[in-house]
């Protein structure tokens, strides 16, 4: 937990501070009226003032994001694995994948709300709709990129198709999976907010923002936008953290020893055939 760790935290914090500083300077330099655009302090102040209202709404948005993200990630992963198994499946499904992303998400939101009601379900579907695509494409790519010589070696070692898949191909997708998840993580909140906008019943961050907008409370408009952004960043950071835990070989030179693993080291002497 040394210099590199503190650098990894301090530098991103500094870059956030710089953005806020630039924002404040622009407001000051161009003497922008606070009814047109608030300074960062005013926007943050609006969030703090209304925290009691905003906090449960933020939790709801986070909930939609998380469920939709999990559903989309699972769907994308399963689709990629199925597509990698048979050319026919891949050729059939790929155009549908691309087509799904060509549909403007904001346009599909309204029909989805009509279909699925005003509850959490349409939001989850919209987030999943956005997230599954980068996951499917990354994992499919990862599966295709597994070294052919490694697969040949695995077969030469006597590995069955299923074993080769489980022991070689599947672990090889973990890295690409997280590349897809990270792309999806930043977009996921956008999906949830689009769902809230279309199915706005008031009890949502998007609904709050719309209300603030109509009462010309620009500080609250910007403040709620900041809150949505913070949810997206927070979710992204969680995914990055999960990636570090799931791919220790990328950042560490040895495996972390768990308590029960220690016995392994002592089993080196006996039992081997001469």
């Amino acid at each position: 937990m040394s210099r590199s760790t503190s650098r990894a935290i301090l530098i991103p914090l500094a870059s956030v501070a710089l953005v806020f500083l630039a924002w404040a300077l622009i407001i000051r330099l161009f003497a922008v009226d606070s009814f047109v655009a608030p300074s960062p302090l005013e926007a943050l102040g609006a969030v703090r003032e209304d925290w009691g209202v905003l906090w449960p709404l933020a939790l709801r948005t986070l909930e939609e994001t998380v469920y939709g993200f999990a559903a989309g990630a699972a769907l994308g992963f399963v689709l990629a694995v199925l597509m990698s198994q048979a050319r026919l499946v891949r050729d059939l499904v790929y155009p549908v994948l691309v087509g799904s992303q060509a549909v403007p998400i904001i346009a599909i939101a309204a029909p989805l709300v009509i279909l699925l009601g005003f509850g959490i379900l349409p939001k989850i579907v919209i987030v999943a709709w956005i997230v599954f695509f980068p996951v499917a494409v990354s994992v499919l790519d990862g599966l295709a990129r597994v070294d052919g010589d490694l697969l040949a070696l695995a077969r030469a070692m006597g590995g069955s198709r299923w074993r080769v898949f489980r022991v070689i191909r599947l672990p090889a997708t973990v890295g690409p999976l997280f590349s897809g998840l990270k792309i999806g993580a930043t977009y996921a909140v956008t999906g949830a907010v689009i769902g809230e906008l279309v199915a706005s019943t008031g009890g949502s961050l998007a609904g709050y923002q719309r209300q603030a907008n109509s009462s010309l409370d620009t500080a609250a408009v910007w403040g709620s936008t900041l809150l949505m952004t913070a949810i997206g960043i927070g979710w992204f950071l969680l995914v990055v953290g999960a990636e570090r835990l799931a791919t220790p070989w990328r950042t560490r030179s040895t495996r972390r020893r768990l308590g029960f693993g220690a016995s392994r080291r002592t089993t080196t002497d006996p039992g081997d055939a001469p």
Partner: protein
Amino acid sequence: MAATTPKLVVERASRAFDDAPALAPTSLAVAAGEFVSLVGPSGCGKSTLFNVVSGLLAPDAGRVLIDGADATGRPGSVGYMLQKDLLAPWRTVLGNIVLGAALTRGVTAADRAEAAALAVRHGLGGYLDHYPHALSGGMRQRVALLRTLATGRDLLLLDEPFGALDAQTRLGMQRWLLEVRAQTGSTVLFITHDVDEAIFLSDRILVMGPRPGAIVDELAVDLPRPRTLAMATAPAAVEAKRRILATLHGEAAT
């Protein structure tokens, strides 16, 4: 074990790709415990022959017998190692050594213990928990060889395993390979285009001619074991080198 069956027999195996012959009908036999090298120009079909022997590639004609049993086009009965170490980056050294068990029946505690013992015996005991990216090229090739040994197959196919290493590391690896083999007694079929390497390691050398590959010369390396570096300049080694170079380059290399 009267009239011992050879470990490996290849009977007139041939293979073409898209009507272009890559391997002319080739026959060879390797006795149990023997170290045989295959030397030849690049593109001469060495690797095709290897894939045929490993069972990954079915020959158009001919047979492969391992311990007298037909193994033509049937992978899973030989240990196999290439120039690329092909270690799984997400597995530790120990995890890579037990890969064969993971691929065939699942890894048991006994497999792990045996793999650890193997690693300790051959100088990798301090690296069991390391991921491959933390190791040097030479160390990774050692892990790759131990992975091959841990499958328990006593016929090893090594396809230019040290080809990507620098000269110094390579020499160390050759001596290490001989030590390992002296302990395990494995039968080795070794591909290389380094004539000195073939002479230093082998009991017998097969020389392949250019495409389509066929064995054009065969010679025994008349040097005692254990081999030492000084033997490289022994008359038998020099004579072997002269003869192989003459065969490969079609002229008297005096």
